[in-house]
């Protein structure tokens, strides 16, 4: 099953599902959750201490049976002070724990998402721009971080405060409590509506961030083209557009947030008024009155404040949460995108460690929604053979290499190595036994040693030196002033194209594959280096099966066999000399090569 679908954006999952999935992916988030909640509630309970102390002082301390009751007031104050200290400690512990679990959970999320990007099929990776991918594992995760810590704290505390306030209100007067809740009912109901609108708005914001980063990254990587064609103006315009899109999306989301938040205030005003009004009405001795006194009504007015404040905060948290959830969603989206062409994993076959034979059984391949690029390719390559694959550009030879190394799966037919269908071979084994050296060697911004040992992580400087000598590159290495510690620069730019190829070959040699697939580099290289590359290749290709996508006549001449592709089909096959005699497509290619040489 060949993927090539775009990366999931996660738009389809709801906020609640996001949080659930998020907690699954980052189990650390659930660590000691109950403990943290308990601490939060303790902290919350502590927060009502001061208002109660004030109220009690007013009611009983000032208007007590003998006037001012100083010992009582002193007792109250000391109790309250103690409570404040305990609350402070509880808050400290809660906050510290929240930070710890949040940071740990998010680190896990980041790392899993990063790993998953690498697990995605090649075609899917190519559907998303570099900058946008980076934003998913950096910026999007950062949004979640801000929320989980502050939002999380405030959210938990607010809920706790609302619960505590409600309970205390019930003690004073259940009738008035109902009044308060009724006033806030419309707000709570409207939250659902706002949640949906906000989630859309913030989803757009996150997408815009990805686009913005992609727009910034592109001209940085293609700096030479931007400068030599002097398109800085147009490039800046594109970046500005992306920045502006992000800005307007953010502003719109913020407007929605501000509006939804302000509704809470209106509900509060209503609640304040109605508490007094209904309180008075109840005080007139009407039904269900209970023993309402003016003191109780006034005290209730204070309690309403205690209730309103956390509701406002809670609303704010809920609306701000949409931003974080939008970011969270996008990261989860990566994880939900199907990973590489099913890796059979530990149940897969392990390829034997000997030169591999290749078999293509009626293989077809097409890119998603595209025409067939490989058409009924049916061939066998004996183990240990050195094969050159030639054809004009677009004839399908590079695709052949991709199918051979299982970077993509065929849409029809089977590819077998040592008799095993590639799809049954575990990736671990596949990547060790089969190495593809692509046309343009990509090097990491590190030393030569690090780049070379990428082929075999266990290799130390001695092993690398030995590999270099085996490939006949000893004098080249000696010529480098810093030897193995030479830094190659970003993308290997500090080295010439030829030297980059050499490093790629050293890497391949260290990897010691049983099937070497080489997409021949074509950039011209100075002859001395070229000879070295040629010699290195000789060594590299002996003792294993090698398939070279060839651009040079010498490669075809030196191969045991040449396979000729034309428009996705194999049209000719045989040793060089035989094919020259045959003519046809190969004959044409050969003529132009020869013509080149004659000048």
């Amino acid at each position: 099953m060949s993927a090539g679908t775009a990366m999931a954006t996660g738009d389809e999952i709801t906020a609640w599902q996001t949080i659930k999935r998020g907690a699954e992916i980052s189990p650390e988030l659930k660590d000691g959750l109950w403990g943290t909640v308990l601490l939060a509630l303790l902290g919350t309970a502590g927060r009502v201490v001061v208002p109660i102390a004030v109220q009690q002082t007013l009611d009983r301390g000032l208007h007590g049976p003998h006037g001012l009751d100083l010992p009582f007031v002193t007792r109250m104050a000391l109790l309250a002070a103690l409570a404040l200290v305990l609350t402070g400690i509880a808050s400290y512990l809660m906050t510290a724990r929240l930070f710890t679990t949040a940071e740990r959970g998010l680190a896990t999320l980041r790392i899993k998402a990063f790993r998953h990007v690498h697990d995605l099929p090649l075609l899917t990776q190519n559907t998303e721009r570099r900058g946008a991918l980076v934003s998913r594992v950096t910026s999007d995760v950062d949004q979640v971080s801000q929320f989980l810590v502050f939002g999380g704290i405030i959210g938990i505390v607010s809920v706790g405060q609302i619960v505590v306030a409600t309970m205390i209100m019930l003690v004073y007067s259940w009738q008035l409590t109902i009044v308060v809740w009724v006033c806030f009912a419309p707000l709570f109901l409207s939250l659902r509506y706002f949640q949906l609108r906000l989630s859309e708005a913030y989803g757009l914001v996150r997408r815009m961030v990805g686009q913005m980063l992609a727009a910034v990254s592109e001209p940085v990587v293609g700096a030479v083209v931007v400068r030599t064609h002097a398109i800085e103006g147009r490039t800046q315009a594109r970046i500005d557009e992306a920045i502006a899109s992000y800005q307007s999306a953010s502003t719109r989301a913020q407007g929605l947030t501000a509006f939804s938040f302000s509704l809470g205030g209106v509900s509060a005003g209503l609640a304040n008024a109605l508490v007094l009004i209904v309180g008075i009405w109840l005080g007139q001795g009407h039904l269900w009155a209970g023993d309402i006194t003016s003191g109780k009504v006034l005290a209730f007015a204070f309690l309403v404040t205690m209730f309103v404040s956390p509701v406002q905060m809670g609303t704010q948290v809920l609306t701000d949460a949409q931003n974080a959830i939008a970011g969270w969603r996008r990261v989860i989206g990566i994880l939900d995108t199907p990973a590489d062409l099913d890796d059979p994993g530990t149940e897969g076959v392990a390829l034997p460690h000997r030169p591999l034979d290749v078999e293509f059984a009626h293989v077809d391949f097409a890119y998603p929604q595209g025409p067939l690029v490989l058409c009924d390719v049916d061939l066998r390559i004996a183990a240990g053979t050195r094969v050159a694959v030639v054809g004009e550009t677009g004839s399908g030879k590079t695709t052949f290499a991709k199918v051979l190394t299982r970077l993509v799966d065929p849409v029809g037919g089977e590819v077998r190595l040592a008799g095993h269908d590639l799809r049954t071979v575990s990736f671990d084994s596949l990547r060790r036994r089969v190495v593809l050296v692509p046309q343009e060697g990509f090097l990491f911004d590190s030393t030569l040693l690090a780049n070379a040992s990428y082929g075999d992580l266990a290799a130390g400087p001695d092993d690398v030196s030995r590999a270099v000598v085996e490939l006949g590159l000893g004098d080249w290495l000696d010529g480098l002033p810093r030897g193995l510690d030479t830094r190659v620069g970003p993308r290997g730019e500090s080295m010439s194209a030829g030297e980059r190829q050499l490093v790629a070959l050293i890497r391949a040699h260290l990897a010691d594959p049983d099937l070497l697939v080489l997409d021949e580099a074509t950039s011209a290289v100075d002859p001395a280096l070229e000879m070295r590359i040629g010699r290195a290749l000789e060594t590299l290709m002996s003792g294993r099966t090698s398939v070279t996508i060839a651009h040079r006549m010498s490669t075809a001449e030196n191969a045991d066999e040449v396979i000729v592709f034309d428009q996705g089909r194999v049209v000719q096959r045989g040793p060089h000399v035989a094919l020259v005699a045959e003519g046809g497509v190969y004959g044409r290619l050969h003529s132009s090569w020869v013509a080149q040489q004659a000048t």
Partner: protein
Amino acid sequence: MSDAAEPGRTTLRDGFGVLGVAIRREPWIFTISTLGSLLFGALTVADAWVLGWSTDHVVLPAFESGTTATGGLVAVLALFLGVAILRAVGIVARRLGAGVMQYRMQAAYRREVTGQYLRLPMAWHQRHPAGQLLSNANSDVEAAWAPIAPLPMAVGTLAMVVIAVVQMLLVDLTMAAVGLMVFPLVTVATLTYQRFSSPLFTRIQALRAELSEVAHESFDGAMVVKTLGREGEETARFAEKADQLRDLGIRVGRIRAVFDPLLEAIPGFGVLGVLGVGVWRIRNGHADPGDLVTIAYLLTIVAFPIRSIGWLLGEFPRSVAGFRRVHRVLDEPVDTSYGDTTLGQGEAARLELESLAYSYVPGQRLLADLSLVVEPGRTVAVVGETASGKSTLTTLLTRLVDPDAGRVLVDGVDLRDLPRGELARHVALVPQSAFMFDDTVRGNITLGEDVADEDVWAALRTAQADGFVAALPHGLDSRLGERGTSLSGGQRQRLSLARALVRRPRLLILDDATSAVDPEVEGRILAGLRRDGGGPVGTTLVLIAYRKATIGLADEVLFLAGGRIADRGTHAELLARNPAYARLVNAYEEVTT
């Protein structure tokens, strides 16, 4: 901006400096937002007043008399709702205003930073990987302006605080004095927090950039990672940074965990203190119970703004860290000088190099005293070993770098005397590796210029790319992926060539621009170039070449060795008389065909 001696105070000062920049830049939005906050604050105090008024004029009378005056009830409703609605207006103005201000500042700085990226020379870019730049433009900018969000609230509450404090002092000086102790306490707490967290935030922002760098590079080389099965190693590399970031975040969190509860508790202790003093004063007859109520209530109200001011100040460390990082880029001097001489159109360009000298590494001359003249319309091949300076020559000819000594002259004008963008109108470079944008084929060729399709096809024809472009599902409108990966190397190269040709350059520089192309096709391209030079006007051609076929196309060959022109002449002449040249060219032929 040194942060050695007193990090706490420096962060405070710098943090206000950052806010100052924002306020100066967006004064109107800031005003609206602050007014909204003031409205909010005033109305919060009004709320207390309304409660007091309702108590005295409606609630207490109703309970005492046993009757309710409807007018009174209506007044209560109207007052509370009125205050609430106006307050809501204030909230919207404040929040939306703060948001708009924040986003505007972010957008402005992002534009400036990215503009700087486009201005800074290639040498600077080599030292600053793409991932870092992404982080600068995004995360650092965001961090720098983060305090704007709580700013209007904090400013607004200042007024609220002032009003409340004045009221408190009017009610009872002694109780008020006790209550006001909270302010210095909060200040000390804030400064201490800033002192400990600032260095951590600086390191965090740097780590964010490093993380971005690793991710960018890793995704760039995704295919290598995949084909060598190194997903695990790459993830470990990333995880190392992610874990460091996490640990720093936890440390910051612990510090914050002390700060926030303190901010909460201090006002609470203030109220208790007032309570104690108040009751004592009431006993001594110096104050009324009502006074105590009022002051306690005012202090409770003031607690929240104190927290919000604390939050604002708490954002400073991160903000200052981000701001400094952004300014490191913005303050980087761009010392490329330009002039205002323009070049004439029409004929092929004349190229002259005068005693050109250049070195990558100081002390190691790559090019030394290089002089040559290429007459208009001539085709010149530059041949030499690797590291003889051929590619460097192309960067000098296109002014990607300036020479250490000597001049590059096009039509007799020093490149440094040309205004920005002028050179690109006359000179085009086809680099060794073709870069494709995430755009359509047409977009990649025209690069946004207004070019008729027929001219695009003409350029494609000369580049021998018309065939495969026509065969693409959407022709010129087919989209190419970010790395142009749906095309082969040879196809990308030909598009790169067409891109240069479509601008009708008067001087065309090809740096091994046909290497990935089949020999047949290369021959056709070069013949086409020779014949019509890329367009109706002639073109001077400079070819960095290796293959005999390519070299053979040139009128003249320059043999570059030891940083200077070691020999020049026709290919045949050089073959005959220069053994080093012959060795080079023949050797190449032997190994590559």
